[in-house]
């Protein structure tokens, strides 16, 4: 009985904490969505070393946005073969330019997360929808803890029933 009370407190605590964390991520996602833009690449600028310097994207309303890249800019882009290319500007300064030119040729939409004039990440359009994934994340954590919670209660209840049956048989 004591264990069940402790478990109830534990799980209420976990649910509360989970709800708080999820809501804070959602807030961050909404804040991030202000610094997020999607569109197709319309210009790629490389330097004399063929390293990516700057690119331009055009959104669905026809507005152009230029972004510079720095060593921390992250890339997650699908190749035409279907393989995923993941890297940073620091690791692959030349390849990043090549990938963006490929995307430009294919009119493949991308999502940019930016900070001022610098792009923080360049990813495929479909996978840039951070806020849409939160319902899956929340469902998963909720289901996990409900499973654990129900299982421990089931064990506790069964233990009590069998113990009382054993006592009954012994008394008899």
């Amino acid at each position, binding site marked *: 009985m004591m264990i069940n009370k*402790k478990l109830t407190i534990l799980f209420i605590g976990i649910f509360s904490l989970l709800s708080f*964390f999820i809501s804070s991520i959602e807030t961050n996602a909404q804040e991030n969505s202000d610094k997020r833009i999607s569109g197709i690449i319309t210009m790629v600028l490389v330097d004399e070393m063929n390293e990516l310097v700057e690119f331009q994207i055009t959104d669905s309303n026809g507005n152009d946005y230029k972004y510079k890249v720095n060593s921390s800019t992250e890339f997650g882009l699908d190749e035409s073969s279907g393989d995923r290319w993941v890297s940073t500007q620091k690791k692959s300064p030349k390849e990043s330019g090549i990938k963006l030119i490929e995307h430009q040729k294919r009119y493949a939409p991308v999502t940019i997360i930016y900070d001022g004039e610098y792009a923080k990440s360049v*990813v495929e359009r479909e*996978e840039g*929808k951070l806020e849409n994934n939160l319902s899956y*994340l929340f469902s998963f954590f909720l289901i996990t803890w409900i499973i654990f919670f129900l*299982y421990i209660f089931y064990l506790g209840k069964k233990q009590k029933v069998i113990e009382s049956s*054993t006592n009954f048989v012994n008394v008899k």
Partner: protein
Amino acid sequence: MGNITKNKLLICSAIFMFINLYLIFMWVPTEANQGAIQRILYIHVPVSQISMLAIILVAVSSVLFLWKRNEFWDKLAIASAEIGLIYGTIMLLSGILWAKPVWGVWWTGEAKLTTALILYLIYVSYIMFRNYFPTGSQGQRIAAIIAIIGALDTPLIYFAANLWSEAHPPIVLGPASENDSSFSSSEMRMVWLFSTITFMIFFVYLLRVRYKLQDTISKYLINT
């Protein structure tokens, strides 16, 4: 003595779970490609690993029981199988809920997923067999064989992504892991490690509770 240890394990699990939640949601960086949904990894991978370890424990315990004829091993096998099933359920559900936003489908028939589903069905068949078939040496032998088949499935699950290169990411841990892993930062690796320890402590706690229940059932059956 047993209750004190059990309570200590529960308190330890609770503390670790709270820290784990904080690390997963507040501390570890968001993965660039998949966004927030990638945080499922910190539960999906540990529960999958423990689910695979649990079936090996079931198989080893079953063999030791047949060899030594000590009831301890039989009770341990049953307890481990049931908790392995719970972890296996979470492994499959987490995979399904991760696949939908990332791959666009709930499930695919690829090797890693299929071998994981086979492990889950082995758990179900083991528990059904133990519950609904008569006890005795023949029943225990057949149950041990089911557990051994399950244990043989675990290396297949582990190597599946490398053997049959499909949508599931390649192995990120252990001897067959590739350098270009899913853990793009040391924080991610650290949170995975912490989460594995957390779920392992919770597994041990559940194992103790389930073992005690099995012990009580055995005593009840002897009395009646």
